[in-house]
């Protein structure tokens, strides 16, 4: 019997769900609301120098890759099912495309984190 790829994608979906449940709201608040408005967190927090230093630090790289990659795998997996639920049963080919998109985004982030030094 052919082995199912479900456990891999289910794990990535689960990991993304867990990370986004633990730190998602705070991350969105910091990068999307607090820093752009200079509310509670100073605007310089996301200055070019500080974010470059984060992306060049080993722990920072792992953090950025984990957040982008896992959020993509979680989100795209769920969007696929959402579309099914509203009457768009896309089928396995499309599911592979959704997972492929998440993988492409993760690889792009990994590549960028390597070239940034």
């Amino acid at each position, binding site marked *: 019997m052919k082995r199912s790829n479900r456990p891999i994608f289910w794990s990535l979906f*689960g990991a*993304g*769900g*867990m990370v*986004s*449940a*633990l*730190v*998602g*709201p*705070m*991350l*969105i*608040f*910091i*990068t*999307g*609301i607090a*820093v*752009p*408005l200079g509310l509670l*967190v100073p605007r310089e*927090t*996301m200055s*070019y120098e500080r*974010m*470059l230093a984060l*992306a060049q630090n080993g722990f920072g790289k792992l953090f*950025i890759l984990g*957040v*982008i990659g896992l*959020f*993509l795998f*979680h*989100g*795209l*997996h*769920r*969007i696929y*099912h*959402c579309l099914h*639920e*509203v*009457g768009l*049963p896309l089928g396995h080919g499309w599911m592979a495309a959704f997972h492929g998109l998440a993988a492409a*985004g993760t690889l*792009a*982030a990994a590549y*960028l*984190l390597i*070239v*940034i030094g």
Partner: protein
Amino acid sequence: MKTYMRPMAGWWRRNPFYLWYTLREWSAFFLTAYALVLLFGLVQLVQGEAQYAAWRASLATPGALLFHAAALLLVLYHAWTWFKVMHKTLPFVRVAGRRVPDRAIFAAGVLSSALLSLLLLLWVLA
């Protein structure tokens, strides 16, 4: 071959439970979009200081702020439901041979989230 498909149009509006469920599921759309915003920020960071400044300016526009406010609310709701069902999604958790009650698993999830979020904020402020 054409098979019969039961019509399901508008099912999610029929019951408040389905409506909340649908709202939770669509939080994934905002989470994905947020990941893409960050990925684009990383692209701009690699491109250089001027491009990165343009990305940051785009984050301060009303549209971006509105998007992030909506994403914040929906992902917060996702987090709540994620911990709410954790006693079903996790294998049985046993401490000293006894099953940990569902409420304790939910409380542990919410507390971990609050603690990690606080640590994240303190790390950013440091």
